[in-house]
């Protein structure tokens, strides 16, 4: 079999993937502190967006794609850009693109290598494009052509893309996407379902008029002075990835209880009462509001809940962590409904 060309600037083996649970455990407390400082500090640079910053942090650590839904001018892109700056992610690890129906796959996945094409090889030059980035932001994601959408499905699902018919892993860890509206076409349903979390990005001028003006002017000034005060260095992308590995290892662990019974993660970190509450909310949303929650999504939700619980209070899942279920809406109407209904079900209003 002919070998694929080597990646431009092919990365060495990721050292984080080699870290042991014990090593990470020793660092866990510091990691958590840094991530909390990071999300709180970043939230101060926005008006009324702390919830979204928190959600982005949780999604990044859990490595689950997050979709921001909202009209233009509601800081969707700004959130991602400042998130990236705050984590000090270098250019080679970051890729962003505004997709339109005319966007070519080569603009996202890299152009075809003409020299290799002459030799009959269909290879993309992926440098600086999505396959080599670790944080990716796709604006207007549902406007992309079907060729790009299909490639994205594979990238999100399997973390790989095809070079000359052969699968090749991508470095993608964190994917944020934005859209003005949620499509209802069936053909886009598959991609939509890949985004377990969908959060509405709303205008805040009604509640925070003056604060918005002040913050907006500050932001404009910083941009023109080429300053990035939000890049405070509280945490790095490595911290995010280490936390992810730590939590993954932790959730896979089995311990033996005092009665000799094998204890799983949920026995230790998800009280029965809250598990039942989790199930009740899911059942209610499914039956009363017709919200579709696939089996795959349910498992992802568990991981997300655990991630949030660990970041926010370092221990077992608590009732307020279940607020994450507010972000399960599949349409704009569902998003609005769940953001209001889930806290009410949980008695957190």
């Amino acid at each position, binding site marked *: 079999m002919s070998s694929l060309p080597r990646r431009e600037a092919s990365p060495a083996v990721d050292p984080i993937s080699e870290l042991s649970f014990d090593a990470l455990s020793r660092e866990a407390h510091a990691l958590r502190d840094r991530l909390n400082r990071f999300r709180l500090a970043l939230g101060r640079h926005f008006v009324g967006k702390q919830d979204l910053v928190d959600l982005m942090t949780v999604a990044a650590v859990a490595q689950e794609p997050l979709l921001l839904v909202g009209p233009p001018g509601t800081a969707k892109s700004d959130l991602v850009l400042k998130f990236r700056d705050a984590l000090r992610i270098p250019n080679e690890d970051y890729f962003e693109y505004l997709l339109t*129906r005319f966007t070519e796959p080569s603009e996202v996945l890299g152009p075809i290598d003409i020299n290799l094409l002459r030799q009959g090889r269909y290879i993309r030059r992926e440098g600086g494009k999505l396959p080599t980035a670790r944080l990716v932001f796709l604006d207007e994601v*549902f*406007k992309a052509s079907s060729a790009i959408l299909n490639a994205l499905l594979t990238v999100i699902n399997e973390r790989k893309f095809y070079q000359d018919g052969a699968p090749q892993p991508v470095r993608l860890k964190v994917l944020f996407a934005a859209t003005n*509206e949620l*499509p*209802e*076409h069936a053909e886009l349903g598959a991609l939509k379902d890949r985004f377990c979390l969908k959060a509405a990005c709303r205008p805040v001028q009604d509640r925070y008029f003056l604060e918005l003006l002040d913050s907006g002017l500050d932001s404009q000034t910083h941009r023109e002075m080429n300053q990035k005060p939000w890049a405070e260095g509280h945490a790095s992308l490595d911290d995010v990835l280490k936390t992810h590995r730590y939590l993954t290892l932790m959730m896979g662990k089995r311990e033996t209880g005092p009665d000799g019974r094998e204890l799983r993660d949920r026995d230790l970190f998800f009280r029965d*009462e809250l598990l*039942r509450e989790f*199930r*009740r*909310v899911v*059942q*209610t949303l499914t*039956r*009363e509001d017709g919200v579709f929650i696939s089996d795959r999504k349910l498992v992802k939700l568990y991981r997300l809940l655990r991630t949030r619980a660990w970041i926010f209070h370092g221990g077992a899942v608590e009732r307020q962590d279940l607020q994450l279920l507010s972000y399960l809406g599949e349409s704009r109407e569902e998003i609005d409904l769940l953001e209001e209904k889930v806290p*009410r*079900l949980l*008695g957190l*209003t």
Partner: protein
Amino acid sequence: MSTLVFPSEEALQLALTSGLVPSEVQASPARYRRTAEGALHVTPESPLTKAALKGLTSLGVGVEDAESGRAAPVLCWAELLRPRRIPVDAAPGGPVLFVPASANALLPLAGEMLRLGCDRQEVCLAGSARGDSRRALLRAVAPPYFTLTGALDHTGGLRAFVPAVPGQHSVWVELGHSHPLARTLQPAKGTLLLIPGDGRWQTAPDGPWTDLYQLTDLRLPEPAEEWKAEAAPGRLSVPLRLTRAARTEPASLWVLRDNARAQVESLVHTLPEALLAQLRFAVAGPPDAPCIVLRARAGRERPPELGLSGMAYAPLPQLADLYLPCDGLLEPPVRRDRLRALLTPERDTVTWLHPTGNGAFRAERLPESAFHPLDAWVDYVVDTGTAALVPWVRGVTFDFEAFEAAAGEWQSSAPEKAEEEDEKDARSSRRSRRVAAPQPAEPAEAATRNVRRATEAATPGARLAPLTPAQLGAAEQELAKLEKSFLALDAPADSAERRRLWVRMAELNGQLGRRRDAGLCWTRALWESAGPEAAELASRWAEAETVGAPSTAELLSRATPSDDDVRALASSLARAVLAPGGQTPGDVPSLQRWLDRHDAALDVRSLWLARASLDRLAGGDPLGLARAGDRLLEMLQRGLSLARDVPRFLRAGTDATHAPRLGAQLEAMQERFERTTRRRSSIEAPPVLTQAYVRFVFACGLARLGQADRARALAVSAMEALDATEPIHGFLSRAYGARVAQALEGQAPETPLPPDIAAELNALNTFQRYKVDRLRQSSALLEPSERLDPARAFGRGARDLRGEEFAALRDIRDPGKVAAEVEALTSRATAPKLAAPERQRLLGGLLDTLPRLPPARALPLLDRLVGALEGLPGEVQGQLLGDALSLAALFGRADRATALAGRLRKVLAGLPPESPAWGQGLLGVSLRGLRRVGLSREARELVDATQGLLAKPKTPLPAQLGVAAGLAMLGRTEEALPVFDRAFDSLSAAKGALPERLALTRSLAGALAHAPVDVALPGLARLSEQLPNVTDSYNTNSHFCLSVVELADALVLGHVEVGQGSGERARSWLDEDEFLVRRRIHRELEERTT
């Protein structure tokens, strides 16, 4: 006490339900033990009789003497049967009884339900007899599902019970379970029996129940404060102010106050004639310093840039007859109706706001009739010498007329003219005045002369004295009353009662100077009369028409006679034939030739009366009469022309009182289309493009309803939004523009597009044609007649879907060749061994083409084609029979229509409810055809035959609506209403895909249009509520969102049909009227040509 051993629970259930265990034993307590094998050892406390024991043993029940010490007690035997699990798909809507593990858990439970919106809760607190424990029951109606999930999980020991039998509240089974004998259980009075999913049955006292609110103290964060109402300090006075707008609108009205005459002279010297033709002017103010108001006609062209030094104004978008300075804005914005009441209280006036500084303004206005075409006052001459220059200078001198100004309102100085006189007449009269008096006249003199002319017009030889204003008012009132009683009259169209009304209306119209309407009334009265009555009516008609008309010789010498002239001659001809001693107005051949050139100006009745009279005067001219008959039937192909053949009061619709309501609703709906935020597909066309087409659609509708200014304004704004150089936008904007113009002209909706625009269709390439055809298919206002199938046409690349023969046929102009071709095709279509699909294709095409032939040639062919329908599928037969019936009606052949209606009835009876033919208006078309030939009974029978569809459960809604439309058409609205309701329900539930819903919307709107206005208008408004969810992803989105335009089209068409006499009564009246015309023509043709 013996113990019974039941081998299984099923055996026990059988013993209990079959009565083997007596009911009194079943009701008494027992003890039982369940073995691992499932056997039940039951020790009853009430002894069983020997007979009962024998019966049980025959069932296989064992009897043991010893009782097991480990047996558990039960309240009754039914408790021995365990409840069965059932799924819980949704929260029960009725009462649910919650039993918390302890009374302490009651409060959190009630609080949770309150939080989730359930406040219909009752609580029953009870203590044990020993006083050592307390229990609590909570009964809630329609509790939230979330709380039920807790009970299903037994979270905290909570259990929920639902009534074992709906409506009965004494036996409760745990949620998610059922008990086989629950219906037979009856606890003691005042006691509740609770059957848990597992464990022992429980009883509880049934009350006392206390409403939760009686146990709840709700505290307000602050004590309430009582406010006392005070009288309003007085009305607020808000001055309206003119402020400067952000953008400048193009001017279309100019008020020239300084040096006005010189400015206009200068203008007409330099302005191209085409632009000059767009301008109208009015003069006001003192004669020595007149003010001239110039106004551009509303139209698709932008108003010209005039560069005048007067004040320039632009119309307010929502009020076309109110003009503001071009950069002006009214502050604060007020509603249109308020603005109209304040600034344009009178109709038919033009008002502009003259700024007086610091935001103040003065409203100045002139009557609409004060404006005259500017180009009519200008003569262009060749400047060949000084002598020629004199008339040119005089030509642009204005004959300014007397004026009055009062309190800022300018009085028109226009000559008093009867409102019915059209602009052309006005122009010609001024021209003649100028020719007669070449010297420039002083304004006062001109005014005097005009007054003199007005009186002169009526005096010589006039049968009726000129009316004073008071009499005019009385005549108008009487006419309005008569028109109203005519519409309300429940009598056939040819009844003597109606004839009397026609005569009186003719007289009154004549007195009011409405000569055209008077003529239409006279001919209607004359049409159905005979003998002396006809003679008298013909004389009176001719007298009325020839008042002030020139002599016949002078008429015949005119190259361009007016419509009144032609009608005067027609009436003279009728009088010559019908009245005793009537004289021929001239030599017959000259009269025939003259009429050949000018009879297009006549309505169908006048034309036929004139031609039939000529036939008699010539001593018989069957050929001429047959030709006239053919021409008339061709004119009637689309029915009576509202503009040409129908008096104005019938054109306006059923009841003129509904016109403002219709217009207002349509405008509100247009506003809804402009402002509604829709959920749009990701590839939907830019809203500005779609909106432009929606505006065109509304412009067509408003034009049909007579709102000319608004229609023009909408069409102009739509046109400006589209790039006319792009082929698709270009064609469609021209086509819609033509439709608006046709509607404004009062032409029938089915009038074909002008040939130059229709020819553009063939110039489009296949894909462009496809997109255009999709819109034509979806917009009945754009394409009212042709049945299109763009997808098939695109797939085949065909010019005509019915086949190339028919496309070729369209190109043939010679009627003889057309007839020969059609006959050849008929022979092919009726050949015995032709395959059914090919026969269907040919028959469909030929039925479409037959109207092009004269009846004498078409009718035999129609008979042959109808004969060849046998053997085709029922649905195809139904459609083709409907077409044939319309044709028979078109040719006025009641005999054939009766036979076809009989066949159609049979075919429709066998047509399955799901056939698409029902939804395609087959029934409506057939009913209209039958009524056109006066076959009301057959129409009723056809509706009765199809009414059975409504009773069939699986009849699709479009089919039901087809029948409902027929019912509404026959005035049986009550029977149609349930169908309308069903259709609305289906649309509200958003059943089916969007194209189906839009098709249903169109069917419903079409059916509603036949209902009374009070049903139709709210229904149409309700239909428009679907708008927020209408979008599509068709490839037509490159130019427009088809579904939105289609919805607009369906709604607007519904309004148009309601408004333009397509409503219940007027439509029926027009059909009957057309029948009368056809009946006489056919009768006389037969008499005179055979």
